[in-house]
């Protein structure tokens, strides 16, 4: 089901940051102007971004696209500050140049027949699902989306107003007492209903739980996965995950969107 989007034009772009938003203490969103990416990116796909001209950090960093506006040639990424690269990115300002590869990887694909979707987002895993929810809403295909958004702290749950516009229900879940539902998002599996399709993205521990639950409930499920990346282009074979049926597959090329039931997520 993940579509291998054929890259019709060059994937290596320079552009600029046009807007910087801080959504929570550690959560930032950057709007970038690169018309080629804005015009062709699909939910689930990512950009591979150079952080510095220098060598600290050396490698690019991958980020899912949060939304895109082909008309003005911009799109957004949203990131959490977790290390050296994302720390540096908090210093980026509107007007700064950016160097990105993209759009890369496979996208979420929702077949016509699927009218009831369940999205399970954990932390910054909300990003590709936000984009997908928005796109589906705009497609006016009459799809109902239940969007569960879990995080440790209520602070790490944001953009709910946007999501509420597009989704049937939006259920924030945090481990602190910030929302009605307290705990982990997978603690509430009995309230997930019976969707045609589950779409998910989040930390591996959560994905493992979602994999187990959807397997038990017999739901089809697609997830957007992460791994350490080198090239982002399929050349280095650094980013693989193990599948049950086809050995190692590349997150940057076959993924990041995979049939979750095909993946070996470890114990």
């Amino acid at each position, binding site marked *: 089901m993940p579509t291998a989007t054929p890259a019709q034009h060059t994937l290596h772009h320079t552009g600029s940051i046009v807007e910087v938003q801080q959504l929570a203490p550690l959560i930032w969103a950057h709007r970038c102007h690169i018309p080629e990416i804005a015009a062709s990116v699909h939910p689930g796909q990512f950009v591979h971004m150079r952080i510095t001209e220098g*060598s600290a950090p*050396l490698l690019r960093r991958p980020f899912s696209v949060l939304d895109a506006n082909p008309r003005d040639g911009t799109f957004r990424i949203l990131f959490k500050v977790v290390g050296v690269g994302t720390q540096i990115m908090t210093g980026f300002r509107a007007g700064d140049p950016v160097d990105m590869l993209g759009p890369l990887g496979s996208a979420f694909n929702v077949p016509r027949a699927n009218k009831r979707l369940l999205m399970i987002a954990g932390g910054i895993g909300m990003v590709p699902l936000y984009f997908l929810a928005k796109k589906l809403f705009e497609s006016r295909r009459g799809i109902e989306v239940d969007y569960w958004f879990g995080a440790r702290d209520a602070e790490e749950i944001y953009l709910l107003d946007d999501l509420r516009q597009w989704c049937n229900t939006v259920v924030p879940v945090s481990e602190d007492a910030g929302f009605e539902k307290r705990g982990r998002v997978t603690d509430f599996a009995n309230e997930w209903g019976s969707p045609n399709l589950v779409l998910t993205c989040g930390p591996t521990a959560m994905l493992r739980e979602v994999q187990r639950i959807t397997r038990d409930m017999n739901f089809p499920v697609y997830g957007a996965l992460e*791994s*350490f*990346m080198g090239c982002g282009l399929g050349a280095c*074979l650094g980013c693989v995950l193990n599948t049950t049926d086809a050995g190692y597959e590349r997150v940057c090329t076959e993924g990041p969107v995979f049939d979750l039931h095909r993946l070996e997520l470890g114990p």
Partner: protein
Amino acid sequence: MTAAAATCVDLSVKLGSLRLKNPVTVASGTFGYGTEYAHVFDSTLLGGVFLKALTMNPRPGNPPNRICETSSGMLNSIGLQNVGIDRFFSEKEPNCQRIASAGVTIFANLAGQTIEEFEQLIDHLETTTAVHAYELNVSCPNVNKGGCQFGQDQTLLRELVIATRKLTQRPIIVKLSPQVTDIAAMGVLCERAGADALSLINTFPAMAIDAQSRRPVLNTIAGGLSGPAIKPIALRMVYQTAQAVSIPIIGMGGIMNATDAIEFLLAGASAISSGTANFVNPNAPVEILRGLEAYCIEHCVDRVEQLIGGLQV
């Protein structure tokens, strides 16, 4: 010199019986089989492409994590994942043919676990005109069985070079491991055994630990270090080996830009490869080529070969 003179710089370099249209190549394992970068730049601009390691049978490679970043470097333990020689012919060879016919020199990187496997690989590859030379990967630090020892055992290495040298008219290039006491001595040994050129250096066995979880970051514990971190070591090894051998050297290890590339040429390399740089800046090979040309013009160098070994000591 005027800008018009740009076109006058002869960028071609001799590599044994081959002539590369320019000295800029991409290192094995960092450029796949030449298709992956198709949407980033025109690979027919390159002087050469070193293909990803090939083995007779398909190899699944190592479990993840396979890579991680270090200060000015990266570790990898891909584990020689490749489709094997048969699928190379069905899936990859046509594209190599296409690039080759545009004048790019194609180097097959062979990662046999036995001398016989190297021989079989050459036997198969002799049947295609899409490959111009063989690079013997005797130094991959990631394969537990066998892989390591060729590059570190003088007797085995000599045997391997002699055996493969007999099988083909094409140049045999030995890619040396930096994890040896005296790399120049290994180079001399290869030259005497009949090698036509040397590639140096492969990655350094190295490791990373996550202090919080107290676990190694790579699944295989150790991997190979590449990138700018190792450049000063690579440069010294190229210099030292170039003093000791008369066969040409393909220099690599942390080359990120034209200045780095020029340093390797000055140290004695006849051609250079960018590896890790391709991940950081996929356009690096083209920028290196352009920068090299600009340097030649600025320094009134007519033929890039004049730079080779030109270090003033």
